């Protein structure tokens, strides 16, 4: 299954599930990444990590390995 870490620029996808086993999963949900939300990869840091996603009308930067716990369709 595809995760948010594999997105291309400008690709808009829906969140399917959050991997609850990831240590950052709680904070990721709290900050607004919930199943059903549309997200888009808007920017990458110069070293390709962290990644900046638009979610619920704001931009959140998270590390690649954290984006990996966001399963998308």
């Amino acid at each position: 299954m595809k995760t948010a870490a594999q997105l291309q620029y400008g690709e808009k996808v829906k969140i399917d599930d959050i991997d609850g086993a990831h240590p950052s999963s709680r904070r990721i949900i709290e900050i607004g990444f919930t199943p059903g939300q549309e997200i888009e990869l808007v920017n990458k840091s110069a070293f390709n990590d962290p990644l900046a996603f638009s979610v619920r009308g704001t931009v959140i930067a998270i590390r690649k390995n954290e984006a990996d716990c966001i399963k998308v369709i």
Partner: protein
Amino acid sequence: MSSLVQDKTTLITLVGSPNSGKTTLFNQLSGRNFKTVNYPGATVEYSFSKLQDKFNLNANLLDSPGIISLTPHSPDEKIAVKSLFSHPVLGIPDLLIVTVDSSQLSRHLLLVKQLQECKFNLLVVLTMNDILEKKGFSVSTKNLSSKLNCEVVKTDGRTGSGLAELVSLIGKKLKENNTLAKNTPVPYRINENKESLLNYYKNIEIINDNVLEELPEKNTVNLKKANRQLRILHPDPIAKKNCYQIDQRTVKIDKILLHKFWGLIAFFLIMAITFSSIFWLAQPVMDFVSNVFAFLADEALALIGNNWFGDFISTGIITGVGSVMVFVPQIMILFSILGLLEDSGYLARGAMLIDKPLSKIGLNGKSFVPMLSGFACAIPAMMAARTIPNKRERLLTIFILPLLSCSARLPIYALLLAFLFPGNKAWIAGLVLAAIYIFSIINSVVVAAIINKFTKRIIKEEDDSSFILELPAYRTPKIKVVYNNMVTSAKSYLRKAGPVILVLSIAIWFLTSFPDYNPKVEMQNHTQDEIVQLKNSERLANSYASDMGKFIQPVMKPLGMDWRVGVSLIAAFTAREVFVSSLALIFKVTGDGETIQNSMVRAMNNASIDDTGQKLFTPATIAGLIVFFLFALQCLSTVAVSRQETGSWRIPILQLVIFTVSAYLLTFITVNGLRALGIA
């Protein structure tokens, strides 16, 4: 603060997510201007104030750091959550005012829901309504109020509209409180699982759909007409999507500022401008301050006369105060630049940019702001490290902060470099100073890498590293915010450093002047000036400081220095900046119509080591001193704050020992190495 304990005035606590306009509301309600910043989690210290008199409500208002939920992830959030339930000094709040950015309604309602579950007495303030209106939507306060079953009011941070309504609501709420028995909030259950979190959001989603209203079409937007027509075919989903639009200008700017090449160029340029303006902008102001105090010291001596009291006022007090005041310009410049970067939204990008490289050496992108503040002072920097959620990364950040060249070291370098490169070679001094700063960055990074790589013994803690940061939309920095930030930092510096330096100046003056204040000297065949000089050196040779210095002499000798530098170095352990004022006192520098710095350089040129007659200050010993100050942890306040922030004496003691011992050894190597190479 103890007076607050007896004060049973009503307590209102402001709470909200980062960037939800909380501090702006605090300023409006209290009438007292405090820091408002654009970097998530920047409120480290609490602001506290009475409600403005004109509101006619006798209540205290407490600001708190921004939190996303009631489950804290970093130390600053932990403190914020704890203080909501019961503030150690102020007690349980009678009323919570929760700020919610209406353009971020669904995200910010999570906290409101959690607070309601804890049975807090609260009311909701909707902010940033103009941003949502630009997207063509508005929140119905009536619907939201009935859905949440609590009062909701809209305010505008700039115009202040809605404030009167808010104040009357606060009054109403507080009156209800008096008649009803006060509820004690129920602590939030920490063991909340993923499903219950998602359930919150499901509820919030329903509320969100219910309260968001599309604004009636304005003449400017034709697109919406098209949308509305489309909605006949596709009802509903389009509306919600539009209110989740992000600021496209911000995305475009980020494409450049986070770019592989241009982003890094911009980062280094911004850092270079920040540091060089500390030197170039501050220097003329510093010269002016230094001149003013030299003038005052001379005037005082002339007015009171050349006796012990005149000497005390002129050398002990005025020169001492001057040595504190002289860094104020620098601190103000550094903090106004930090404020500009913070308020524009760049700091969050800076943190994101260097997260990857910093994480390789055991730090975090969130170490960026503490490290940047470390160039002003390690104390606020260590407190800023509270925003780092991972304990190991936080401790490592705190560990290396004393290595960054704080502003207290600048006057020392300025003096030493003015000695090495006098007059027309001053531009070299500027370059060397820049090199010193760059070296301090490299130094701290290398030390972090070494500690991270070779030993887990120094920092034992281990937990999951994380970097989650909201990137706020870029905005033009508000001059008022930057100005307040600058003034607050300068004031807190003066409050913290001022008294210590003054007391020490007086102590050093005493130790260098007594017990033999008026020694007998050969009066014949000497001019008046020579007699004064003779008395000065005789007085110092018999002083308490000189006695103390004899103990230090064996330690200082291998460094090619004598007890006078030793005494200054010891005095500098209370705070580095004392080094300059104590050297000034030991060499009995007074203004004589020139700046303190110039007359110190002259006195240093004339100084020689008593028993060998060798010059005390040579290029080798000056270079050695610079190396010493680069490494040594010479600041008792830093040690105290490190103890407070790390929760034990382990780290501050390790810092003190490791940094100071390596400072001594490296100074030894520098001085003797340079001498072996033929540089005296």
